[in-house]
Protein backbone atom coordinates (compact mmCIF):
# COMPACT_ATOMS: atom_id res chain seq x y z
CA UNK A 1 0.00 0.00 0.00
CA UNK A 2 1.40 3.35 -0.91
CA UNK A 3 -0.25 6.65 -0.25
CA UNK A 4 -0.31 8.90 -3.30
CA UNK A 5 -2.92 11.55 -2.50
CA UNK A 6 -2.26 13.93 0.39
CA UNK A 7 -4.00 16.88 2.08
CA UNK A 8 -2.90 20.29 0.84
CA UNK A 9 0.03 21.77 2.75
CA UNK A 10 -2.30 24.50 4.04
CA UNK A 11 -4.65 21.92 5.49
CA UNK A 12 -1.74 20.16 7.17
CA UNK A 13 -0.44 23.43 8.60
CA UNK A 14 -3.92 24.22 9.91
CA UNK A 15 -3.95 20.80 11.53
CA UNK A 16 -0.54 21.30 13.12
CA UNK A 17 -1.69 24.67 14.45
CA UNK A 18 -4.92 23.21 15.79
CA UNK A 19 -7.20 25.48 13.80
CA UNK A 20 -9.22 22.94 11.81
CA UNK A 21 -12.72 22.09 12.94
CA UNK A 22 -13.23 18.79 14.71
CA UNK A 23 -14.39 16.84 11.64
CA UNK A 24 -11.61 18.04 9.35
CA UNK A 25 -9.12 17.55 12.17
CA UNK A 26 -10.14 13.91 12.49
CA UNK A 27 -9.82 13.11 8.78
CA UNK A 28 -6.41 14.76 8.49
CA UNK A 29 -5.28 12.96 11.67
CA UNK A 30 -6.29 9.59 10.30
CA UNK A 31 -4.51 10.25 7.02
CA UNK A 32 -1.37 11.44 8.82
CA UNK A 33 -1.39 8.40 11.09
CA UNK A 34 -0.69 6.32 8.01
CA UNK A 35 1.49 8.74 6.06
CA UNK A 36 5.05 9.42 7.18
CA UNK A 37 5.55 12.26 4.67
CA UNK A 38 2.62 14.20 6.12
CA UNK A 39 3.66 13.43 9.69
CA UNK A 40 7.05 14.88 8.86
CA UNK A 41 5.47 18.06 7.55
CA UNK A 42 3.32 18.31 10.69
CA UNK A 43 6.40 17.90 12.85
CA UNK A 44 8.12 20.64 10.90
CA UNK A 45 5.22 23.04 11.41
CA UNK A 46 5.19 22.12 15.10
CA UNK A 47 8.89 22.95 15.10
CA UNK A 48 7.98 26.41 13.81
CA UNK A 49 5.40 26.50 16.61
CA UNK A 50 8.19 25.76 19.07
CA UNK A 51 10.41 28.52 17.76
CA UNK A 52 7.44 30.89 17.80
CA UNK A 53 6.90 30.00 21.44
CA UNK A 54 10.55 30.79 22.21
CA UNK A 55 10.35 34.11 20.39
CA UNK A 56 6.99 35.34 21.62
CA UNK A 57 6.79 38.17 24.10
CA UNK A 58 6.17 36.57 27.51
CA UNK A 59 3.00 37.63 29.33
CA UNK A 60 3.27 37.80 33.12
CA UNK A 61 1.47 35.01 34.90
CA UNK A 62 -0.99 35.87 37.66
CA UNK A 63 0.38 36.12 41.19
CA UNK A 64 0.42 32.68 42.77
CA UNK A 65 0.20 30.81 39.44
CA UNK A 66 3.26 28.71 40.16
CA UNK A 67 2.03 27.84 43.66
CA UNK A 68 -1.38 26.92 42.26
CA UNK A 69 0.21 24.49 39.83
CA UNK A 70 2.55 23.12 42.49
CA UNK A 71 -0.48 22.40 44.68
CA UNK A 72 -1.92 20.32 41.84
CA UNK A 73 1.33 18.43 41.35
CA UNK A 74 0.97 16.95 44.78
CA UNK A 75 -2.19 15.29 43.64
CA UNK A 76 -0.67 14.02 40.43
CA UNK A 77 2.73 12.37 40.59
CA UNK A 78 4.58 12.01 37.28
CA UNK A 79 3.19 9.13 35.33
CA UNK A 80 5.21 6.73 33.29
CA UNK A 81 4.23 6.59 29.67
CA UNK A 82 1.28 4.30 29.18
CA UNK A 83 0.51 2.20 26.15
CA UNK A 84 -2.33 3.36 23.95
CA UNK A 85 -5.91 2.37 24.57
CA UNK A 86 -6.10 -1.35 24.02
CA UNK A 87 -9.68 -1.51 22.75
CA UNK A 88 -9.64 -3.75 19.78
CA UNK A 89 -11.50 -3.06 16.62
CA UNK A 90 -9.17 -4.21 13.91
CA UNK A 91 -11.33 -2.66 11.27
CA UNK A 92 -10.65 0.91 12.32
CA UNK A 93 -7.52 3.00 12.73
CA UNK A 94 -6.33 3.61 16.28
CA UNK A 95 -7.49 7.24 16.39
CA UNK A 96 -11.09 6.36 15.60
CA UNK A 97 -11.24 4.03 18.58
CA UNK A 98 -11.35 7.09 20.79
CA UNK A 99 -14.57 8.28 19.17
CA UNK A 100 -18.15 7.19 19.66
CA UNK A 101 -19.45 5.86 16.41
CA UNK A 102 -23.17 5.59 15.82
CA UNK A 103 -25.21 2.80 14.32
CA UNK A 104 -25.00 1.94 10.70
CA UNK A 105 -27.71 3.35 8.45
CA UNK A 106 -28.33 2.41 4.88
CA UNK A 107 -28.40 5.45 2.66
CA UNK A 108 -28.80 3.69 -0.66
CA UNK A 109 -28.54 0.16 -1.94
CA UNK A 110 -25.00 -0.96 -1.22
CA UNK A 111 -24.10 2.23 0.62
CA UNK A 112 -24.23 2.69 4.38
CA UNK A 113 -22.93 5.24 6.83
CA UNK A 114 -22.13 5.44 10.52
CA UNK A 115 -22.07 8.91 12.09
CA UNK A 116 -19.12 9.81 14.28
CA UNK A 117 -19.72 11.80 17.42
CA UNK A 118 -17.33 14.73 17.38
CA UNK A 119 -15.97 16.34 20.54
CA UNK A 120 -17.54 19.76 20.38
CA UNK A 121 -19.16 21.73 17.62
CA UNK A 122 -17.82 21.38 14.14
CA UNK A 123 -18.74 23.01 10.88
CA UNK A 124 -18.30 19.65 9.27
CA UNK A 125 -19.94 16.41 10.28
CA UNK A 126 -17.97 13.21 10.18
CA UNK A 127 -19.08 9.74 9.24
CA UNK A 128 -17.84 6.42 7.98
CA UNK A 129 -19.12 5.61 4.53
CA UNK A 130 -19.12 2.05 3.31
CA UNK A 131 -19.86 1.19 -0.30
CA UNK A 132 -20.06 -2.14 -2.02
CA UNK A 133 -17.55 -3.01 -4.72
CA UNK A 134 -18.42 -1.58 -8.10
CA UNK A 135 -20.87 1.02 -6.78
CA UNK A 136 -21.28 4.00 -9.09
CA UNK A 137 -22.26 7.28 -7.60
CA UNK A 138 -24.30 9.72 -9.61
CA UNK A 139 -22.52 12.78 -10.75
CA UNK A 140 -22.67 15.28 -7.94
CA UNK A 141 -21.28 18.52 -6.67
CA UNK A 142 -20.68 19.71 -3.14
CA UNK A 143 -22.33 22.66 -1.46
CA UNK A 144 -19.44 22.86 0.99
CA UNK A 145 -16.20 20.97 1.30
CA UNK A 146 -15.64 17.27 1.66
CA UNK A 147 -12.55 15.68 3.15
CA UNK A 148 -12.14 11.96 2.67
CA UNK A 149 -9.62 9.42 3.84
CA UNK A 150 -9.86 5.92 2.40
CA UNK A 151 -9.58 3.28 5.10
CA UNK A 152 -10.10 0.18 2.98
CA UNK A 153 -10.82 -0.63 -0.62
CA UNK A 154 -10.65 2.08 -3.27
CA UNK A 155 -12.57 4.46 -5.47
CA UNK A 156 -11.72 6.34 -8.62
CA UNK A 157 -12.77 9.57 -10.27
CA UNK A 158 -11.24 12.12 -12.64
CA UNK A 159 -8.63 12.92 -9.97
CA UNK A 160 -7.24 9.40 -10.05
CA UNK A 161 -7.47 6.23 -8.01
CA UNK A 162 -7.77 6.52 -4.24
CA UNK A 163 -6.71 3.52 -2.18
CA UNK A 164 -6.20 2.86 1.52
CA UNK A 165 -4.59 5.84 3.23
CA UNK A 166 -5.27 8.26 0.39
CA UNK A 167 -6.80 11.64 1.06
CA UNK A 168 -9.28 13.40 -1.19
CA UNK A 169 -10.62 16.92 -1.08
CA UNK A 170 -13.74 18.10 -2.88
CA UNK A 171 -15.58 21.40 -2.84
CA UNK A 172 -18.21 23.25 -4.79
CA UNK A 173 -15.84 23.71 -7.72
CA UNK A 174 -15.72 19.96 -8.18
CA UNK A 175 -18.18 18.01 -10.23
CA UNK A 176 -17.37 14.35 -10.07
CA UNK A 177 -18.64 10.83 -10.35
CA UNK A 178 -16.71 8.40 -8.18
CA UNK A 179 -16.78 4.68 -8.79
CA UNK A 180 -15.92 2.18 -6.10
CA UNK A 181 -13.23 -0.30 -7.09
CA UNK A 182 -14.00 -3.95 -7.64
CA UNK A 183 -12.98 -6.65 -5.24
CA UNK A 184 -13.70 -5.34 -1.77
CA UNK A 185 -16.04 -2.81 -0.18
CA UNK A 186 -14.71 0.70 0.13
CA UNK A 187 -14.67 2.17 3.63
CA UNK A 188 -14.03 5.90 3.89
CA UNK A 189 -13.86 8.42 6.67
CA UNK A 190 -15.57 11.61 5.52
CA UNK A 191 -15.90 15.11 6.94
CA UNK A 192 -18.41 17.20 5.06
CA UNK A 193 -19.61 20.74 5.41
CA UNK A 194 -22.83 22.01 3.98
CA UNK A 195 -26.03 23.22 5.44
CA UNK A 196 -26.87 21.68 8.74
CA UNK A 197 -30.60 21.16 8.41
CA UNK A 198 -31.11 17.58 9.38
CA UNK A 199 -33.64 16.81 6.63
CA UNK A 200 -31.39 18.26 4.02
CA UNK A 201 -28.54 16.30 5.45
CA UNK A 202 -30.07 12.90 4.97
CA UNK A 203 -31.78 13.91 1.79
CA UNK A 204 -28.55 15.02 0.28
CA UNK A 205 -26.76 11.97 1.51
CA UNK A 206 -29.24 9.67 -0.08
CA UNK A 207 -29.61 11.50 -3.34
CA UNK A 208 -26.06 11.31 -4.72
CA UNK A 209 -25.66 7.59 -4.26
CA UNK A 210 -27.22 5.02 -6.47
CA UNK A 211 -26.06 1.53 -7.15
CA UNK A 212 -26.26 0.72 -10.84
Amino acid at each position, binding site marked *: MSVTHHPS*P*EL*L*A*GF*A*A*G*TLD*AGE*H*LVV*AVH*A*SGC*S*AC*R*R*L*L*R*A*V*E*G*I*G*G*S*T*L*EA*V*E*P*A*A*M*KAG*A*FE*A*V*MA*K*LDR*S*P*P*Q*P*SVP*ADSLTDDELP*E*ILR*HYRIGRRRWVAPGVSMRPIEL*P*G*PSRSRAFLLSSNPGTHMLEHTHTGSELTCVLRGSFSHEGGRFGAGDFDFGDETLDHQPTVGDGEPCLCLVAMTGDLRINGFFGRLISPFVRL
Partner: protein
Amino acid sequence: MEWATLIGRVADGDREAFRRLFEHFAPRVKGLMLKTGASSDDAEEIAQETLLAVWRKAAQFDPVSAGAAAWIYTIARNLRIDQVRRAARTGAVDHDAELDYLVDPAEPADDVMARNDEAGRIATALSSLSEEQSMAIRLSFIEERPHPEIADFLGIPLGTVKSRIRLAMNRLRALLDETK
Protein backbone atom coordinates in the same frame (compact mmCIF):
# COMPACT_ATOMS: atom_id res chain seq x y z
CA MET B 1 21.21 23.78 30.99
CA GLU B 2 19.13 22.66 28.08
CA TRP B 3 15.37 22.53 28.40
CA ALA B 4 15.33 18.90 27.30
CA THR B 5 17.62 17.99 30.20
CA LEU B 6 15.33 19.79 32.61
CA ILE B 7 12.33 17.90 31.30
CA GLY B 8 14.26 14.69 31.91
CA ARG B 9 14.78 15.76 35.52
CA VAL B 10 11.12 16.63 35.90
CA ALA B 11 10.35 13.06 34.87
CA ASP B 12 12.32 12.03 37.95
CA GLY B 13 10.24 14.36 40.12
CA ASP B 14 12.73 17.26 40.34
CA ARG B 15 10.70 20.30 41.43
CA GLU B 16 13.50 22.80 41.02
CA ALA B 17 13.85 21.77 37.38
CA PHE B 18 10.10 22.17 37.05
CA ARG B 19 10.21 25.66 38.53
CA ARG B 20 12.74 26.73 35.91
CA LEU B 21 10.64 25.31 33.09
CA PHE B 22 7.59 27.02 34.51
CA GLU B 23 9.27 30.41 34.76
CA HIS B 24 10.48 30.21 31.20
CA PHE B 25 7.61 28.60 29.37
CA ALA B 26 4.41 29.50 31.24
CA PRO B 27 4.61 33.25 30.37
CA ARG B 28 5.48 32.38 26.78
CA VAL B 29 2.55 30.00 26.40
CA LYS B 30 0.34 32.73 27.85
CA GLY B 31 1.85 35.27 25.46
CA LEU B 32 1.25 33.05 22.44
CA MET B 33 -2.33 32.29 23.50
CA LEU B 34 -3.07 36.00 23.90
CA LYS B 35 -1.65 36.57 20.44
CA THR B 36 -3.97 33.99 18.90
CA GLY B 37 -7.01 35.62 20.45
CA ALA B 38 -7.52 33.87 23.79
CA SER B 39 -8.89 35.96 26.65
CA SER B 40 -6.52 36.76 29.48
CA ASP B 41 -8.20 34.21 31.78
CA ASP B 42 -8.18 31.50 29.12
CA ALA B 43 -4.53 32.19 28.26
CA GLU B 44 -3.59 31.99 31.93
CA GLU B 45 -5.48 28.73 32.35
CA ILE B 46 -3.84 27.15 29.31
CA ALA B 47 -0.40 28.26 30.46
CA GLN B 48 -0.96 26.68 33.88
CA GLU B 49 -2.49 23.52 32.44
CA THR B 50 0.32 23.22 29.90
CA LEU B 51 2.98 23.24 32.58
CA LEU B 52 0.96 20.83 34.68
CA ALA B 53 0.89 18.52 31.65
CA VAL B 54 4.64 18.96 31.23
CA TRP B 55 5.00 17.59 34.76
CA ARG B 56 2.64 14.72 34.13
CA LYS B 57 3.94 13.76 30.72
CA ALA B 58 7.63 14.47 31.23
CA ALA B 59 8.45 10.77 31.00
CA GLN B 60 6.87 10.65 27.55
CA PHE B 61 9.03 13.45 26.18
CA ASP B 62 11.41 12.11 23.58
CA PRO B 63 14.33 14.51 23.13
CA VAL B 64 15.41 12.62 20.03
CA SER B 65 12.24 13.30 18.04
CA ALA B 66 11.16 16.72 19.21
CA GLY B 67 12.64 19.87 20.67
CA ALA B 68 11.44 20.93 24.11
CA ALA B 69 9.74 24.08 22.83
CA ALA B 70 8.00 22.22 20.00
CA TRP B 71 6.78 19.59 22.45
CA ILE B 72 5.44 22.19 24.86
CA TYR B 73 3.87 24.02 21.93
CA THR B 74 1.93 20.89 20.94
CA ILE B 75 0.69 20.43 24.52
CA ALA B 76 -0.52 24.03 24.65
CA ARG B 77 -2.14 23.72 21.24
CA ASN B 78 -4.03 20.57 22.26
CA LEU B 79 -5.22 22.17 25.48
CA ARG B 80 -6.42 25.17 23.49
CA ILE B 81 -8.37 22.87 21.16
CA ASP B 82 -9.96 21.22 24.19
CA GLN B 83 -10.77 24.56 25.76
CA VAL B 84 -12.47 25.87 22.64
CA ARG B 85 -14.47 22.66 22.31
CA ARG B 86 -15.50 22.73 25.96
CA ALA B 87 -16.53 26.37 25.83
CA ALA B 88 -18.84 25.75 22.92
CA ARG B 89 -20.46 22.69 24.35
CA THR B 90 -21.40 22.92 27.98
CA GLY B 91 -21.56 19.76 30.01
CA ALA B 92 -19.65 17.75 27.47
CA VAL B 93 -17.24 15.09 28.54
CA ASP B 94 -13.61 15.97 28.24
CA HIS B 95 -12.07 14.67 25.10
CA ASP B 96 -8.37 14.43 24.63
CA ALA B 97 -7.60 16.43 21.52
CA GLU B 98 -4.14 15.03 21.51
CA LEU B 99 -4.64 12.60 18.71
CA ASP B 100 -1.88 10.14 18.58
CA TYR B 101 -0.83 10.77 15.02
CA LEU B 102 2.77 11.17 16.12
CA VAL B 103 3.26 7.50 16.78
CA ASP B 104 3.79 5.43 13.74
CA PRO B 105 3.15 1.76 14.41
CA ALA B 106 5.28 0.95 11.39
CA GLU B 107 8.33 2.62 12.91
CA PRO B 108 9.59 0.78 15.99
CA ALA B 109 9.51 3.27 18.84
CA ASP B 110 12.85 2.16 20.16
CA ASP B 111 14.69 2.64 16.90
CA VAL B 112 16.73 5.64 17.99
CA MET B 113 18.67 5.77 14.74
CA ALA B 114 15.53 6.10 12.66
CA ARG B 115 14.06 8.74 14.93
CA ASN B 116 17.32 10.63 14.96
CA ASP B 117 17.44 10.52 11.20
CA GLU B 118 13.87 11.75 10.96
CA ALA B 119 14.47 14.59 13.41
CA GLY B 120 17.62 15.55 11.52
CA ARG B 121 15.70 15.73 8.28
CA ILE B 122 13.11 18.02 9.79
CA ALA B 123 15.75 20.24 11.37
CA THR B 124 17.65 20.47 8.08
CA ALA B 125 14.50 21.38 6.18
CA LEU B 126 13.53 24.03 8.71
CA SER B 127 16.97 25.60 8.60
CA SER B 128 16.90 25.63 4.79
CA LEU B 129 13.61 27.47 4.74
CA SER B 130 14.14 31.18 4.15
CA GLU B 131 13.39 33.52 7.05
CA GLU B 132 10.60 35.03 4.99
CA GLN B 133 8.97 31.67 4.28
CA SER B 134 9.24 30.52 7.86
CA MET B 135 7.70 33.85 8.90
CA ALA B 136 4.80 33.38 6.49
CA ILE B 137 3.99 30.00 8.05
CA ARG B 138 4.39 31.35 11.56
CA LEU B 139 2.18 34.39 11.05
CA SER B 140 -0.52 32.57 9.15
CA PHE B 141 -0.83 29.33 11.08
CA ILE B 142 0.86 29.56 14.44
CA GLU B 143 -0.14 33.13 15.27
CA GLU B 144 -3.31 33.06 13.16
CA ARG B 145 -2.87 36.65 12.01
CA PRO B 146 -5.35 37.97 9.48
CA HIS B 147 -4.01 38.31 5.96
CA PRO B 148 -3.94 42.14 5.91
CA GLU B 149 -1.65 42.04 8.94
CA ILE B 150 0.60 39.48 7.29
CA ALA B 151 0.77 41.65 4.16
CA ASP B 152 1.76 44.56 6.35
CA PHE B 153 4.32 42.60 8.27
CA LEU B 154 5.99 41.05 5.25
CA GLY B 155 5.65 44.21 3.17
CA ILE B 156 3.82 42.47 0.32
CA PRO B 157 0.50 43.26 -1.38
CA LEU B 158 -2.58 41.71 0.24
CA GLY B 159 -3.33 39.84 -2.98
CA THR B 160 -0.11 37.85 -2.79
CA VAL B 161 -0.37 36.75 0.85
CA LYS B 162 -2.20 33.55 0.04
CA SER B 163 0.24 32.51 -2.67
CA ARG B 164 3.18 33.42 -0.45
CA ILE B 165 1.89 31.10 2.27
CA ARG B 166 1.25 28.32 -0.20
CA LEU B 167 4.71 28.77 -1.66
CA ALA B 168 6.25 28.56 1.79
CA MET B 169 4.40 25.35 2.63
CA ASN B 170 5.22 23.77 -0.72
CA ARG B 171 8.87 24.67 -0.27
CA LEU B 172 8.85 23.10 3.19
CA ARG B 173 7.32 19.93 1.82
CA ALA B 174 9.86 19.82 -1.03
CA LEU B 175 12.73 20.30 1.43
CA LEU B 176 11.44 17.47 3.60
CA ASP B 177 11.11 15.20 0.59
CA GLU B 178 14.49 15.92 -0.91
CA THR B 179 16.54 15.33 2.24
CA LYS B 180 15.69 11.65 2.10
